[in-house]
């Protein structure tokens, strides 16, 4: 009987672990984490205080989106994570060699607070079968009240990426840069924000807004 109970318990535990693992796979990396706290009167003082009640703080990991568009910025060809509004959720695409494309990278701040010191980077494959970056093609969206909302469509976000940035890490400095990180003698390492080793201006943007970077490449 005890042995039977132990086996059943193990079975239940394994099923829960499996279910949790499956849920993580399905939901992906964007989690919402809740923390509940309250201030209380520990007692013993001269005045009795009523407890504050619970205050709940949720946090979520914001998702980097990367998409490839045609050179006109008219058609989203593929997106990762997949997006049903982008070429029927395609996460890969085949194009004629030599085709000029646009990469759109964005973060939607779906939280209620502003973000500060946001950093991300993208290392382009600059091999003979990879990409050739188009010099001075980096553009960004506004990072103030005129930025696209966190509910904006992909097309709206892309259309708002109109502020040109220099390729250089500094002079004049801005929010992004691209450098040559390997022996291929081509610009391949894009960083945004104050990334260690290739630091730009520190990037902040408002709650419920989207920040995007747009750049042009040619597929070799």
């Amino acid at each position, binding site marked *: 009987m005890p042995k039977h109970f132990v086996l059943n318990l193990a079975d239940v535990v394994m099923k829960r672990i499996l279910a949790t693992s499956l849920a993580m796979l399905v939901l992906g990396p964007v989690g919402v984490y809740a923390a509940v706290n309250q201030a209380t009167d520990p007692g013993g003082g001269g005045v009795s205080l009523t407890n504050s009640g619970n205050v709940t703080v949720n946090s979520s990991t914001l998702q980097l989106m990367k998409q490839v568009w045609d050179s006109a910025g008219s058609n989203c060809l593929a997106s990762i994570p997949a997006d049903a509004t982008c070429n029927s959720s395609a996460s890969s695409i*085949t194009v004629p060699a030599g085709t000029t494309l646009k990469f759109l990278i964005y973060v939607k701040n779906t939280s209620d607070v502003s973000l500060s010191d*946001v950093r991300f980077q*993208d290392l382009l*494959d600059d091999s003979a079968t990879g990409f050739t970056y188009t010099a001075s093609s980096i553009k960004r969206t506004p990072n103030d009240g005129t930025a696209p909302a966190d509910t904006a469509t992909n097309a709206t976000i892309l259309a708002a990426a109109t502020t040109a940035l220099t390729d250089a890490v500094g002079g004049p400095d801005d929010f992004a840069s691209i450098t040559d990180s390997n022996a291929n003698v081509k610009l391949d390492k894009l960083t945004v924000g104050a990334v260690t080793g290739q630091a730009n201006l520190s990037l902040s943007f408002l709650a419920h807004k989207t920040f995007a970077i747009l750049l042009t490449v040619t597929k070799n």
Partner: protein
Amino acid sequence: MLSRILKRWSGSTAKVFVRAILILALGWPVVPFAATNQAVDPGGGGATLSASGPLTVNSVQLALVKQARDLSGAVMPGGSNVTAGQQIYFVLYVDNVTSVMANDIRITDLLNEAQFTYVAGSLETTAVPTGSNDAAIWAGAWTPVTDAVAGPDDTGSITDSVAPAGLDRVTFGAVVGQSNQVLNISGSTLRAVRFRVAVK
């Protein structure tokens, strides 16, 4: 530059070499090259971001194909006989096997005037679905293209580029030095051009 595919031997009968119905390469067809990238959070900032995941872009080299055909549209096999004065077609085509538009396609074909005489006003073009066979290409709706580089401009032209006098240089698209309208080929579309020559 495209080279001729026919070669005259001697006398009133010319032996035709169809040099492989040449696949004059912009490259070999349908060799995919994959490149995968993702945007990531390098760490150290004020907000944690989830990596985008890998985004894959494949590319394929599109092939430029050249054929010789008789006036009925039949593709001429290697070793076909033609006679001096006989007219034949040259057909050039690019099959965009991808779903994405191929932009700014440029084609040049320099005729050997010692062996061929271009038939004035014979430039034409058509678009058919990708993968169309020889018969389907021929059955396409052919649209005339003027010989002139401009006025009215279109996607093709032919000029006299070298002695002796005579039209000998065919270009399609925005070829430097003999520029026509930009030639784009929609995704999943085969674009063909053709023109007639008389064998000398």
